């Protein structure tokens, strides 16, 4: 279909700048995008008939990775031998 109506996963790599130009980058638009991403994740992995620990565990693992990224600058400056 037309470029503006396709989801991110269906857009090819070469078309990415064009796709970014068509999407709504205002605060409401970004918030709507985040909301859409969260509800598609929720409906796919958590809001299922016989869910298990996997849905939430992926979220928590992503949170750990994100925190690692936030702290990387600080952690990388630590030399292990100096801490002993």
């Amino acid at each position, binding site marked *: 279909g037309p470029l503006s109506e396709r989801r991110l996963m269906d857009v090819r790599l070469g078309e990415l700048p064009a796709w970014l130009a068509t999407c709504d980058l205002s605060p409401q638009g970004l918030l709507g995008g985040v909301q859409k991403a969260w509800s598609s994740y929720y409906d796919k992995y*958590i809001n299922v008939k016989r*869910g298990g620990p996997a849905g939430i565990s992926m979220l928590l693992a992503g949170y750990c990775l994100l*925190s690692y990224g936030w702290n990387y600058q*600080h952690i990388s400056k630590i030399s292990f031998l100096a*801490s002993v």
Partner: protein
Amino acid sequence: MNLSFFDQFTSPCLLGIPLILLSMLFPPLLLPTPGNRWITNRLSTLQLWFFHLITKQLMIPMNKTGHKWALMLTSLMVLLITINLLGLLPYTFTPTTQLSMNMALAFPLWLATLLTGLRHQPSISLGHLLPEGTPTLLIPALILIETTSLLIRPLALGVRLTANLTAGHLLIQLISTATTALLPIMPAVSILTTSILLLLTILEVAVAMIQAYVFVLLLSLYLQENI
């Protein structure tokens, strides 16, 4: 740069932008709002069961007027328990280790219970300052003591939560540093410290839940005295 053991408690910051608001907003994202369905997914069912358990526990000893506080106390309990438990994951930041946040939670809520009591039943609230059956000579001293213990309640609430969580995190960091430092030198002692670390982690999970519960329980007790 030397590793300081208190570096884990610095407020997270990315390119100069403080991230503490994000780390405080993340726990509620893990609690989905139940939809319109009668039978929801397993996470929502578990969550609902847990909220009912907390609300019943807190509201059974309270009279009818105290039930207006149900939403406040239950949501406070859920917030504290999720923040504390999330802080046990590696590399995460625990907002409740900051004294500022705990005082900001404890002081207004304690003040609200105190003012509610003074506004609606001033004699009874002031009467709590003198326990029954005290000898006449001790009355002035005891009133001073009770007033001090009343005024120190918000400080105790905030500092208790901060101190428990900070101490736990520090201990985990210290013992794991010891384990990794001893591993090339004395592997046997390293295994001992690993077992200590495992026990400590279990303790920390328990402490995380218990401290949240104690905070809210004490607040509900202060409310019961005054409402």
